[in-house]
């Protein structure tokens, strides 16, 4: 039909968390759009003898063999190395890692060097991403100029130029007056402000969670209260301004409690966490393992359980990869000197699936935190199966056994504390705008 490129995905278990669909069926893409999908489309049944008769004759046929075809993952926060740290990651390598992890769209942190606090910065990211053309990359803009925490950026103009939301990345907007003005100003344009929740003075000098393990290791600790007190302060400012406020990488039980209560009061607050915070604890620091150094730090077992409970009851809206590539040079150091950060794009899905396999969340609910929820928060028309919507798809087998192997990572950096961890789940195919971007070379 007039040269459109059509792909028929047959024998798929269609799972769309936005609509609650979970049924065997098929899906047809036409160029970069979903043209049709539904239970029973193209017939059901495995194909010993080729495609079913009712698949369009001119379509390429992908036999999904009963595996799950879902919207591609939308990763709410990743660091992609550019500009400034191209030796750790580039937009090209981060895009490969995202594709390998089933992530079809990601939002990148603006606390780069230089920080993304102006239109040229946003255009730089957009141009590079267009050139790489693998997954969709959406930049955050800084809340404050230079992410220095003093003067607010041209948030309105930056939003028009493509900033999906505003954050100073892993630097908290610490000054109450600056945060108040930022939240207040953000309401002019209905913008989302994302906070790194840590009171920096209380955390000053700390390198891991304060407690018995830090004390034994002789490492300066960060009290877990540093997180919740920043959130509590901000919630007062949200009450005052009515702004849309989102807490990044929640890691403590108290934070979950406070956010749960704020939601019950009707405040416009949302939050996310990242796999290390529900899959690991401070015990994993072990004998000064710098790969287990992250920011915020890994917490105790009670906190980890509270994060799982917060995900299960919906207090925590989103799971982000928190992808933070660091090279050997900044990790092979004494713990206090090492950079924090864990690569996460390639392990986001398999680690999140642990929550499903352990029975904490059902599959639709889990996938919602990885697809339509983050897309909605960022105002992106992504993360759902919709006729006429973008053909960003993820085909995966949730039960395939495997083991995380950092040497197989395509990210430029291999800093993962999960190396060797047995997992269940495998990304089989990642599709962006109708093109297969993973497995590599298949599109």
């Amino acid at each position, binding site marked *: 039909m007039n040269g459109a490129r059509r792909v028929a995905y047959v024998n798929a278990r269609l799972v769309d968390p936005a609509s609650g669909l979970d049924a065997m069926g098929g899906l047809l893409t036409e160029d970069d759009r979903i043209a049709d999908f539904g239970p029973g489309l193209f017939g059901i049944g495995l194909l010993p003898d080729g495609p079913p008769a009712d698949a369009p004759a001119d379509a390429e046929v992908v036999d999904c063999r009963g595996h799950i075809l879902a919207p591609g993952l939308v990763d709410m926060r990743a660091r992609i190395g550019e500009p400034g740290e191209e030796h750790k990651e580039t937009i090209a390598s981060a895009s490969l890692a995202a594709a390998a992890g089933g992530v079809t769209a990601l939002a990148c942190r603006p606390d780069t060097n230089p920080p993304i606090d102006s239109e040229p910065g946003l255009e730089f990211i957009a141009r590079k991403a267009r050139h790489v053309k693998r997954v969709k990359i959406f930049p955050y803009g800084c809340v404050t100029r230079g992410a220095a925490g003093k003067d607010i950026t041209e948030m309105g103009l930056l939003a028009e130029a493509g900033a999906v939301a505003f954050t100073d990345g892993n630097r908290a907007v610490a000054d109450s007056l600056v945060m108040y003005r930022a939240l207040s100003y953000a309401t002019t344009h209905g913008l989302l402000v994302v906070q790194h929740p840590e009171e920096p003075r209380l955390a000053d000098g700390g390198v891991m969670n304060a407690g*018995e393990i*830090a*004390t034994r290791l*002789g*490492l300066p600790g960060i009290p877990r209260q540093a997180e919740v007190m920043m959130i509590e302060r901000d919630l007062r400012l949200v009450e005052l301004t009515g702004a849309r406020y989102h807490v990044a990488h929640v890691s403590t039980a108290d934070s979950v409690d406070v956010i749960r209560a704020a939601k019950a009061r009707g405040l416009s607050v949302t939050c996310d966490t990242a796999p290390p915070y529900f899959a690991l604890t401070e015990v994993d620091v072990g004998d000064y393992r710098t790969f287990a150094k992250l920011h915020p730090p890994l917490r105790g077992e009670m906190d980890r359980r509270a994060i799982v409970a917060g995900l299960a009851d919906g207090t925590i809206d989103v799971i982000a990869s928190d992808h933070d590539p660091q090279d050997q040079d900044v990790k092979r150091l004494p713990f206090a000197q090492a950079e924090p950060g864990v690569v996460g794009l390639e392990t986001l899905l398999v680690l999140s699936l642990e929550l499903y396999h352990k029975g904490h969340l059902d599959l639709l609910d889990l996938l919602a935190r990885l697809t339509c929820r983050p897309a909605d928060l960022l105002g992106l028309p992504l993360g759902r199966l919709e006729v006429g919507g973008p053909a960003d798809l993820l085909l995966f087998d949730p039960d395939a056994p495997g083991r995380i192997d950092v040497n197989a990572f395509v990210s430029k950096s291999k800093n993962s504390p999960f190396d060797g961890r047995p997992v269940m789940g495998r990304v089989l195919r990642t599709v962006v705008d109708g093109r297969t971007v993973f497995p590599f070379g298949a599109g």
Partner: protein
Amino acid sequence: MIGTAALPANRFGHRHLLGIEGLSAGEIALLLDTADGYVEQNRQPDKKVDALRGRTVINLFFEASTRTRTSFELAAKRLGADAINMSVSTSSIRKGETVIDTAMTLNAMHPDVLVVRHPDAGAVSLLSQKVEGAVINAGDGSHEHPTQALLDALTIRRRVGLLEGLIVVICGDILHSRVARSNIHLLNIMGARVRVAAPPTLLPAAVDRLGVEVFTDLRRALADADIVMMLRLQRERMHGSFVPSTREYFHFFGLDQDKLRLAKPNALIMHPGPMNRGVEIDSEVADDIYRSVILDQVEMGVAVRMACLDLLTRRDNRQ
């Protein structure tokens, strides 16, 4: 780490001495027994043996030290080893050479023992993973200083006869102290009762989980104490950051005759040195020849370090 079960009684079961945590009571006793022998030898006119003849010991100090470095140097020389001191200033670290680079460079010269002090916790352990010889931790950040705890234990054992059942008060900057951590581990392993006394600003989080009784009142901590260990308080922590003033600190946490009266009449006074007289300890107490064993500690330091060097090299000597 190698298990100790199959080793003869005079063999130390570890390649390195990185900390007290993880050692057994038997291993500590072996170190102390071996050191006992060297105490006598160090009092002879001829102090030298050839247990480490032909061996090379490098003292690698990333942090300034006179006392500990001298003690290790003497220990190595009295055992007949070639001892070399290397001080790595923090400026060359800033030039980009990492702990691992330094370790690999020195390893290429085949030292038998590296004695390492570093301002960062865990740095000595990191370095030990990259060298073939034995590594002795001479202090890593606020983590451990195992030979200090061993020399303290030897001092107590020679004076009192045993460690088990003693009430030991450790007072002062527990938060930043590697000496405190190593002593807490050692004394617990050997069956002593450990109390720590400090204002909460100088106590690490969850310190009670290390097996100590926590006091914020030194006077109460001193009741029935057999041993009082005073820790050094760094000057930069005295003026409003961790404690309000030297004057206030001494008033509540400085050891003087008045407070000492609350301890057992024959209680011993210890200090790892160098002392801040009038800050954590009164001169009258520090110089009390009947009760202060501060100079004994210095003497025991050489013997303990000889024992550590001996046992760590003896291990591969006989393989």
